[in-house]
């Protein structure tokens, strides 16, 4: 029998009891330094102990319950994925998805955290122990190679007997390649302790003893003390026989990090990932909530304000904002309002999509990014427009940044995601049952004093966004401080013009005729333009304009961006004159 590769097995790296809330624990396995932390949702993260930005150890980072925050430049890394969630030097940029701390497997068994191993590896399942009935004894680091420690445990097992009773008969057996089980029998009682050996690196290990069963409260302390003393003696003997030199950086098998989420490359409007509906519930009057879980692996990362395209079973494609707060990385959580005049999108989500169903999605896109460097952040939500703002509010709350979330709704019953709203109490202001005029008055009050470094985000019905932009503009809010996202483009679109488009990079020229969009003409000419809403709302199909007058028909750009005239959304906008030149 050949011994298994240590790198193919899972090994203990910490005891569950070490993972105190909001702390980061240092560990080392097979030469790899690890930062181990538990998020508030209970998930245990085992990561490489090194900030990918400038190499600072993440064991000195802050655990805010959802993310680790590096103390050097404040980069934030998400629970589960290890993705960089925020780079404070660039407050309005979404960090590229490739920026990710290597994350390793984490499993709990016998009161220990297990990591490393090949993807198929499982923590040991031993006849000696019962999964939820163990007492984790004090772990002991030993400066000898793991094989010497295992050998020593076998040879000295007669010394590792129970705390009470000297008539014990003691036997020992291998409980797998990195564990020694010691069984002591006194009359009819049996005490079993399994000593797991964590290979720290080539020259060091940690012995982690776990006892079967829970001793009576009165005996606990004496058992712990007894075993600690015996192991301490074993350590002294092992270290003195192993000689004087300890190699810290010994031979190591590289630990295999978890794979990145895999998605199909973006192309046109094609879906990129498959998810299952893990949970569906009615979160408010007429609003269904969905949690979408990955079929395997992890979901691509996203920032507050992001949305996904959902490819519905009936063939329609709809955009829904992610309401997730920081650290919620296991599912995408959406809210869908049933529109009375639904063209089949929200009706299908409400009536035909059920728990357990499979859906196709795009990767998250973010055309409504949140800046986190504002002195004041005002979030104004109308009805279901609250969804992206919920993600923002939770982020600001978690980072302890000042914000107000003004939630306009018909009544209490119409407030979605109550369980998310409740912990927001300080920033949340509810405005219920107001008429459009009363709403305008409220918005007037909210925005009347503009101060430097303030930002306003509004999402809701079209007329409410229009009103908010007008009112805030009147109170001195500059265009670049007012951010908005429409659900749909309610303006009347016209596509009767004919014009010529020159593509500067390839030197090609094409004609766009009446009745066909610029986006479709580009695609016909073989340009792989991404798109999402295809109605001038989301901004995904944006192109840079080098020359020519524009006929903007979108609801994405603000007035100054329109006036600048250097960008356009190809799905709805057209040339105002006869010719435009695009940077494509």
């Amino acid at each position, binding site marked *: 029998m050949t011994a298994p590769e240590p790198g193919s097995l899972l090994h203990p790296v910490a005891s569950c009891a070490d993972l105190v809330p909001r702390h980061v624990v240092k560990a080392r396995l097979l030469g790899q330094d690890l930062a181990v932390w538990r998020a508030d949702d209970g998930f245990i993260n085992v990561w490489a102990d090194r900030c990918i930005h400038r190499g600072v*150890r993440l064991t000195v980072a802050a655990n805010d319950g959802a993310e680790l925050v590096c103390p050097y430049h404040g980069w934030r890394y998400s629970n589960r994925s290890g993705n960089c969630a925020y*780079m404070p030097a660039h407050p309005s940029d979404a960090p590229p998805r490739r920026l990710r701390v290597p994350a390793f497997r984490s499993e709990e068994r016998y009161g220990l955290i297990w990591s490393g191993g090949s993807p198929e590896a499982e923590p040991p399942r031993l006849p000696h122990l019962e999964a939820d009935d163990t007492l984790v004894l004090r772990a002991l680091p030993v400066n000898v190679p793991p094989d010497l420690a295992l050998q020593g445990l076998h040879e000295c097992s007669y010394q590792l007997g129970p705390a009470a009773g000297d008539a014990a008969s003691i036997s020992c057996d291998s409980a797998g390649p990195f564990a020694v089980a010691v069984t002591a029998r006194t009359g009819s009682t049996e005490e079993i302790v399994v000593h797991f050996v964590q290979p720290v690196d080539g020259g060091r290990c940690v012995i982690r003893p776990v006892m079967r069963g829970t001793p009576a409260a009165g005996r606990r302390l004496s058992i712990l003390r007894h075993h600690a003393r015996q192991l301490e003696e074993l350590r002294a003997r092992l270290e003195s026989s192993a000689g004087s*030199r300890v190699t810290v*950086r010994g031979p190591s098998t590289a630990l295999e990090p978890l794979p990145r989420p895999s998605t199909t490359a973006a192309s046109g409007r094609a879906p990129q990932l498959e998810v299952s509906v893990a949970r569906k519930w009615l979160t408010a009057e007429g609003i269904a909530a969905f949690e979408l879980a990955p079929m395997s692996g992890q979901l691509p990362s996203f920032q507050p304000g992001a949305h996904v395209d959902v490819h519905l079973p009936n063939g329609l494609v709809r955009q829904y904002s992610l309401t997730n707060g920081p650290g919620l990385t296991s599912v995408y959580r959406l809210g869908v309002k049933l529109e009375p005049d639904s063209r089949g999108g929200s009706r299908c989500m409400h009536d035909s999509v059920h728990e357990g169903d499979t859906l196709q999605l795009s990767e998250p896109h973010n055309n409504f990014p949140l800046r986190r*460097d504002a002195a004041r952040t005002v979030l104004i939500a109308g009805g279901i427009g609250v969804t992206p703002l919920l993600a923002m509010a939770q982020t600001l709350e978690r980072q302890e940044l000042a914000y107000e979330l003004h939630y306009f709704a018909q009544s209490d019953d119409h407030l979605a995601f109550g369980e998310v709203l409740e912990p927001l109490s300080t920033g949340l202001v509810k405005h219920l049952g107001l008429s459009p005029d009363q709403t305008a008055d409220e918005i007037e009050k909210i925005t009347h004093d503009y101060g430097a470094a303030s930002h306003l985000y509004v999402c809701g019905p079209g007329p409410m966004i229009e009103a908010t932009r007008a009112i805030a503009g009147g109170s001195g809010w500059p265009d670049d401080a007012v951010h908005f996202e429409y659900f749909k483009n309610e303006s009347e679109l016209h596509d009767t013009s004919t014009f010529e488009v020159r593509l500067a990079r390839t030197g090609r020229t094409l004609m766009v005729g009446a009745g066909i969009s610029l986006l479709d003409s580009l695609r016909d000419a073989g340009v792989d333009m991404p798109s999402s809403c295809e109605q001038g709302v989301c901004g995904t199909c944006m192109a840079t304009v080098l020359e020519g007058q524009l006929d903007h028909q979108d609801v994405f750009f603000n007035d100054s961006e329109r006036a600048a005239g250097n960008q356009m959304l190809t799905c709805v906008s057209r040339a105002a004159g006869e010719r435009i030149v695009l940077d494509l």
Partner: protein
Amino acid sequence: MTITDGRQTEPAIGPADPVAVDQWYALTALDEIPVGRAVRTKLLGVPVSYCRDHDGAPLAWLTQDSLPAGAPVDARTLDAPLPTMADYGYLWTTVGEPGGALFDIPETAEPDRRILNAGTFGIFTSGPRAVENFLDMGHLPFVHPGVLGQQPFTEIVDYQVEYRSSEIYAVNCLIFQPKAAAASTSGQMVNYTFRVPHPLCALLYKSTPEDDVRLDVIGLFVHPIDDGRVRAHLFNCLLDTVNTDGQLRRFQQGVLAQDKPILENQVPRQLPLDPDAEAPTRADKTSNAYRRWLSDLGMTYGVVASTQPGL
């Protein structure tokens, strides 16, 4: 029992790197050097000793058994002294053959400048990591909150990096500082210029409330003990008529005390020069330029040399 400290290599004794060897290094502030008594240290892993002679002139030599620490030294009988210079308030020496003179800091010639060593800090890091930290604006709101930066005003707007006569300059570096003016309640944007004239020395120029035109100059002069340990000297050349030396020292020492634990938790201690070894953003333009510059100079001491060809 011997335990290595987790580094990839033992500290180098006597580096093979001519780029690092053929430089002047500031060992200690002149006014902190005892007269006629040997002080031992290391420079680039090489044991060296120094003192001042009875005329106040600095002396340095390769450590000899016959002159233990504290031993009386007679300049006239000292064998093969190392070259020394007394500049900007420090004793500079070398274990190699620096081709030219030390870089110039023209501001030090202005008569109304306050010139002092505001502090010397022992830090377990490499020289290049220490210099990069000095050039780094992104860390100010996090490591020096309430003093040199403040959250959430963390944005680093674009600035320019230039090479001028084989030195690096980073200009128009703006950062929001809460204490920029004593009476201001809202803080203000401060404009920095950084200059790197030497692989282990950097300077920063910053406006001062006491002069509309001229700038305060603050320098970091690193004495590399070996490739994982430094003594970092903070050089001040200020237009300040208000603060005492003690106040200036306390301020700078407070700042460096905040950087020390960060620097000592960076792995590896040596600065990786491979552009893919760490993940810079546009805010790190100065640091990228510095890494490339060291790479181009052929520096191998205190760095993890790039394995990429042609860099």
